[in-house]
């Protein structure tokens, strides 16, 4: 196995008396797609927020390419190669789709003209080019989720955190987005994805990490994890005799 790109070590995040993430450890290797699943409130988004720098961990640490990045702010991590999307999408509504992507492109292309060129490539790739001059607020939900991915991609990340980019889309749009994610992996981007739709997560993930009440309860290939009694219990509850 090559060196892991991301190492989460004994990560704990408390909010006052609530432990949202409790002693979680796992690794992500280059070019892997790792699915992070668990019931509502399991701590997936909190874990994402710690890894992407929005929260500092209460205990434990996060290593990226072997370097401790715990507590580094999001804009520093973006520079290091970590891109992320938000479950509740965050377009810049008053700006055009193109401007949204240009802003993200500034990270690698500080000159306006170069950033705009790069933004058009991202728009082509995410199939948003025909909507480039619309305001971001005018996009459909599918469009906004696509824009969210586009903005993360414009950062030219090596590691991408995708938070429920499929939820709320219709089946055609879902297939479309899955295709896009697989294309990204083929380009060499490592992906950690949170998703509720099992059909999707089972299909695209190389490995799954399962959280419940902030703790890791299982890890492994999708088919194995799906049979794990602990996971079944967490999702469906215990069968009463």
């Amino acid at each position: 196995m090559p060196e892991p790109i991301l190492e989460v070590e004994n990560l704990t995040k408390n909010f006052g008396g609530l432990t949202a993430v409790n002693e979680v450890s796992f690794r992500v290797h280059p070019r892997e797609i790792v699915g992070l699943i668990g019931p509502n409130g399991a701590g997936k988004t909190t874990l994402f927020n710690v890894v992407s720098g929005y929260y500092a961990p209460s205990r434990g640490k996060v290593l990226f390419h072997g370097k401790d990045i715990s507590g580094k702010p999001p804009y520093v991590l973006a520079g290091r190669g970590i891109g992320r999307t938000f479950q509740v999408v965050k377009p810049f509504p008053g700006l055009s789709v193109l401007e949204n992507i240009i802003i993200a492109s500034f990270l690698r292309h500080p000159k306006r003209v170069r950033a705009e060129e790069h933004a058009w490539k991202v728009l082509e790739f995410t199939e948003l080019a025909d909507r480039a001059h619309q305001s971001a607020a005018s996009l459909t939900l599918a469009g906004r989720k696509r824009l969210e991915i586009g903005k993360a991609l414009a950062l030219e990340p090596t590691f991408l955190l995708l938070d429920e980019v499929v939820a709320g889309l219709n089946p055609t749009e879902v297939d479309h987005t899955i295709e896009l994610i697989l294309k990204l992996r083929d380009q060499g981007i490592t992906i950690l994805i949170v998703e509720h739709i099992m059909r999707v997560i089972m299909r695209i993930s190389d490995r799954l990490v399962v959280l419940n009440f902030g703790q890791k309860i299982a890890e492994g290939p999708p088919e194995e994890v799906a049979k794990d009694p602990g996971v079944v219990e967490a999702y469906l509850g215990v069968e009463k005799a």
Partner: protein
Amino acid sequence: MKDRRLSGHLLVFAAMLLIPAVVHDTFLLRVFTEAVMWIGLAVTFDVLAGYTGYLNFGHSAFFGIGAYITAILMVRAGWHFAPAAALGGAAAGLGALIAGFPTLRLRGAYFAIATWALARAIQQGVLMMDITGGPDGMRLPALLSPGFFYYIMLGVVGVTFFAYWFLLERAPFGLKLKAVREDEQGAEALGLNPTKLKIQAFVLSAVPTGIIGGVFAYWVTFIDPASTLGDLVSDQALVMVVFGGMGTLTGPVIGAVLIFTFKTVFWAYLSDYEVLYLIILGGVIAASVVFLPDGVLGVLPQRRKGVEDHA
């Protein structure tokens, strides 16, 4: 289209350069000078209000700092006007840098309160100090040359406007600020440091405001805490910006001209009803927020370049 906008701005600027050649009436030239000053104060206010979404109710503090530093250096230290005003601008910028660190982490309304309180504190400080002349104010050496002051004011405001136009509408900086305004967390994920950007905008707003304050002090030859540090400077700039159209640079210019014209006419004919002016100002701002959310500029077609609203 962008180039057409720039040539439009340059044309207006060129026309303004010709005003002293046409207007020989001293009083009228004073009115024009003050109009240009308010354009400057509105545009500097807009950098923060329109591009980052932060309303600075202490804008007068920068104006007053510039005015007082210029006055003190000229009167007490015998400096020439130009270096004194430049240092006034630098002092205002430094003030923004220091005030920005704690306050720009606050959300909108808290920032407005904090900057307002800070400006009041500075005003009280100036009232109590000896070097500023306290409540008696300061008298500066008089230079009776209306044309000179018109050109100095226009030069400062013009350079400020075109520098802003380039930085905010052409260079990446403006888009980055807008990203922070629209969604701070989303901007952070894209590698932008929101606090740093907001502080840069704050300083960018403060420096020319300080210089304009310096020009004002030398021009009117007498300053006191009320005329330079009072609420009216901030309030009036806010009304001009909101009325004209926030975050557009052109809007505040239009707003400044319209509100200032109204003010001048009001003072000329209805000065007995002084108290009415503030009431009307308040009414205008309330009405623009409700009826003209994008300001006067928003009523004109082609308001947002590049964005077609399909919503």
